[in-house]
């Protein structure tokens, strides 16, 4: 078993209302960033887990997203395995 560091993005489905993204979009325009478009705000979840291989780690993370981390009705997710984690896992 190895420890892997993963970064998961959970983002609101395209087309679905995103009040936070909208507010930030407005705020950025108000601050003068006129060329900013398509702002979407989701969650960035970083975690470490044990798995036999990178693929196994990814599969495990996918399962977690389906079960808990993402709302199947409204959110999509992407998983990035950042490689092996430092030996001592920081406690959450």
């Amino acid at each position, binding site marked *: 078993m190895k420890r892997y560091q993963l970064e998961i993005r959970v983002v609101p489905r395209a087309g679905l209302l995103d009040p936070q993204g909208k507010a930030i979009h407005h705020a950025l325009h108000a601050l003068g960033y006129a060329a900013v478009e398509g702002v979407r705000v989701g969650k960035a979840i970083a975690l470490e887990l044990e798995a036999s291989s990178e693929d196994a780690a990814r599969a495990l993370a996918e399962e977690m997203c389906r079960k808990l981390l993402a709302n199947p*009705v409204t959110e999509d997710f992407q998983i990035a395995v950042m490689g092996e984690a430092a030996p001592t896992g920081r406690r959450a």
Partner: protein
Amino acid sequence: MSGRLVVVTFPGSNCDQDCYHAVELAGGEPSYLWHREHGLAGADAVILPGGFSYGDYLRAGAIARFSHAMEDVIAFARRGGPVLAICNGFQIACEAGLLPGTLIRNRTLRFHAFDQHLRVENNETLWTSSYERGQILRMPVAHGEGNYEADRETLDGLEGEGRVLFRYVDAAGRVTEEGNPNGSANAIAGIVNQEGNVMGLMPHPDRAMEAALGSVDGRGIFESLVRHLSAVGAR
């Protein structure tokens, strides 16, 4: 005999006592079920109360739905048992798939707490039988994530089948921007599932049970339920 209503308490529930008290006022028999326990045997109806189960972390209701109690509640609902899901309970019910759609952050991104007007859209349900159709109610809302969203088909289904029971309106009873506290699609405040036995609503009927507190408009929901239970001669 009156109905035995079980109020489920999750870590972070904070309207469980309010619901318990509301059931008493409506003439029902309340009891509590701790989220870690099983035990809906003998329950005639279940209430998922308001609050911040698991701090509403990740998504409101996302973590609570995995408790032992919720396994039973889901089974109970599938058997047709009445489930009243208020505020955070509504969010939990959506996460658990008992109700369609989802409740996202309020349009303003701010928590809103004030008295809100609702319109009874359908009074031919076990939840609303003691109201008039079109009746205007006033009761507190208190939530940061009450913005009801669902895809077109779902919304059309809800509307077409009369499953939108309560809609946000202004004091005059009209559906308006200002009258919609959180930006919910179609100003939806409360819905039922296809079978009609699970109702979710964001406002707090449990806080509108006594004139001394400003409104008795919430009584109708609890009384309709209790009346229904005694009618079907609670199991």
